[in-house]
C-alpha cells in the first residue's frame, strides 16, 4: 500500500527511482539536482537496492556510463542540472539515436551566465530537439509518479527511447511536501522487469552506435523522429494504467478551470500551481480565466493543444527561458507553429518569466492575464516580453 510521506522532493524522487530497482546509477553532483543521486547512493550503501552506483568524474562520463550500461542491457538512471546537462550534451542526442531507454531527472536550473544556481528552463530547452521524451512535473507527487512512469515508457518495446523528467530546481527539488509513495509490490506490479531489445554480449553479437553515412542518415533521422512521435500512444497508455492503479490522472496538457474560459495561461512545471491561485482570483473578479498545464513537452502534444485552446480568445504562453534574439520563447514558438494553421485561434502573447530563480507570485500571473486581454485591442509592439525587468 502507498505510504503518506512528508519529504524533500529530491529525496522522494530518489525513493521513487529506487522502487524501480535500477541496475546502474551514474551521476555527478551539481546543484540543485544533487540530493537525488546523493540519496540514491545512500540507498545503495544501505543495501536496499542491488545497484552499481558509479561515481564518475563528470556529467559527460555519467551519461556515457549510462549509455554503456544500457547497451549491455541494464536499467540505467542519471540526474543533472544546467551546465551539467550542457556538459553531457555531446552524448544527449546519441542516447535516443541508439534507442537506449535511460531515465534522467533534471533539476532545472538556469544556464550561465552570470553564474546562477536557481531555477529556469534554459537547460532542458537547449536540448529539446535531441530526441528524448520530456516530462514536466508540477509538484512532488508528479515527480514521484513520473519517475516510475518514465521507466515503463522508456523501456516499452514500441518506444525504446530515453526519458527526462524535469522538476524545477529549488521550487521542487528542495521543497518538503506531503506525497504518496507507492510500495515495492505496487511498483513491481506496474513496472515489469526490463527486457532489452538487444544487449552487448559476446554470445549475441551486435554493434551499437556505428557510422551512418549520407546514404543512410536521412532514413535513420526519419526512424528516430517517427519513434518519438509514435511514443505518445504508449505514454497515454502508461498514464491510463497509472490512473487505473493509483487513481492519479495524467494528461499531456492538464486543464484547470478551462470550462467557459476565454483567456488562459499556459505553463510548464511548478509555476502551474501558482497560476492556479491566480486563475481563482481572476474568476472571483468575473474574468473568464483558465489554465493549461503542459506535462508532456516532447513529443509535443499537437492535437491536445489544438483541442485545449478551442473557444479561447486570448492565450498567454509562459516561457521560463529566454530566446536571445529569437522570434519568441521556445514554448511559444511551438504553440504558434501548431496554431498558425487553425482557422480560429486565440491572440497569443508570450511572457518570459522567472529567469534564474526570479520569484513569480500570484499577482504576476494576474497582471499577465490582464495584459493578454488588452493585447486583443492593442497588439503589443514586441512578440515577447521579459516580464518584470527593472527599467522597462
Amino acid at each position, binding site marked *: 500500500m502507498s505510504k503518506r510521506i512528508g519529504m524533500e522532493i529530491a529525496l522522494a524522487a530518489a525513493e521513487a527511482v529506487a522502487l524501480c530497482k535500477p541496475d546502474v546509477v551514474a551521476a555527478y553532483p551539481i546543484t540543485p539536482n544533487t540530493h537525488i543521486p546523493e540519496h540514491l547512493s545512500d540507498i545503495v550503501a544501505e543495501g536496499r537496492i542491488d545497484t552499481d552506483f558509479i561515481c564518475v568524474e563528470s556529467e559527460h562520463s555519467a551519461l556515457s556510463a549510462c549509455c554503456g550500461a544500457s547497451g549491455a542491457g541494464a536499467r540505467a538512471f542519471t540526474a543533472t542540472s544546467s551546465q551539467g546537462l550542457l556538459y553531457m550534451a555531446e552524448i544527449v542526442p546519441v542516447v535516443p539515436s541508439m534507442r537506449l531507454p535511460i531515465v534522467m531527472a533534471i533539476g532545472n536550473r538556469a544556464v550561465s551566465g552570470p553564474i546562477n544556481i536557481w531555477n529556469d528552463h534554459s537547460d532542458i530547452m537547449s536540448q529539446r530537439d535531441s530526441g528524448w521524451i520530456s516530462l514536466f512535473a508540477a509538484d512532488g507527487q508528479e515527480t514521484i509518479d513520473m519517475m516510475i512512469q518514465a521507466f515503463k515508457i522508456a523501456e516499452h518495446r514500441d518506444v*525504446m527511447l530515453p526519458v527526462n523528467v524535469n522538476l524545477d530546481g529549488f521550487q521542487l527539488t528542495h521543497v518538503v511536501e506531503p506525497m504518496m509513495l507507492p510500495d515495492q509490490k505496487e511498483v513491481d506490479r506496474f513496472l515489469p522487469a526490463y527486457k532489452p*531489445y538487444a544487449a552487448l554480449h559476446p554470445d549475441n553479437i551486435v554493434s551499437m552506435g*556505428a557510422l*551512418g553515412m549520407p546514404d543512410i542518415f536521412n532514413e535513420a533521422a526519419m526512424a528516430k523522429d517517427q519513434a518519438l512521435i509514435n511514443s505518445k500512444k504508449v505514454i497515454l497508455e502508461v498514464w491510463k494504467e497509472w490512473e487505473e492503479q493509483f487513481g492519479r490522472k495524467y494528461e499531456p496538457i492538464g486543464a484547470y478551470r478551462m470550462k467557459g474560459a476565454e483567456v488562459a495561461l499556459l505553463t510548464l512545471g511548478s509555476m502551474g500551481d501558482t497560476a492556479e491561485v491566480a486563475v481563482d482570483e481572476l474568476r472571483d473578479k468575473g474574468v473568464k480565466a483558465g489554465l493549461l498545464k503542459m506535462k508532456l513537452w516532447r513529443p509535443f502534444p499537437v492535437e491536445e493543444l489544438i483541442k485545449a485552446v478551442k473557444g479561447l480568445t486570448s492565450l498567454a504562453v509562459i516561457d521560463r527561458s529566454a530566446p536571445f534574439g529569437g522570434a519568441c520563447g521556445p514554448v511559444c514558438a511551438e504553440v504558434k507553429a501548431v496554431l498558425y494553421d487553425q482557422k480560429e485561434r486565440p491572440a497569443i502573447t508570450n511572457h518570459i518569466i522567472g529567469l534564474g530563480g526570479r520569484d513569480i507570485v500570484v499577482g504576476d500571473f494576474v497582471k499577465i492575464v490582464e495584459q493578454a486581454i488588452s493585447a486583443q485591442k492593442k497588439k503589443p509592439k514586441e512578440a515577447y516580453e521579459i516580464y518584470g525587468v527593472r527599467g522597462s
Partner: protein
Amino acid sequence: MEKAKKWPEKWQEVNPGCMVFRPGSTREYHTGTWRSQRPVYDTGKCIKCGVCYIFCPEGCITQDADGYFMADLDYCKGCGICAHECWPGAITMVEEG
C-alpha cells in the same frame, strides 16, 4: 544465398538504433572508393622493412608470400602516408584516372 543489402532501402527497414547484427559487415563497405590517389609499390626499391605497414592508418597493408608489402586497394583511402614514410622511396602516389 541472397546478397545482404548494403543499407536499408526504406526508413522502415532501419534497425532500431541502427543496431548492426551481422558481425564484420563493415568489410563490405569499400572505403577505397573515396581515394583520389593510389600508392604504387616498386618492388625493385622495396627492402621489406614494413614501415609502410606500421604507419598505414587504415591497416590495409599486408605482406605477400615473397615478403613484399602491398596495399589492399578495396580499403586504401589514398592518404599517401605510406609513400611519405617509405624512406627507400619505393612508393609513388599516382592520380586515379
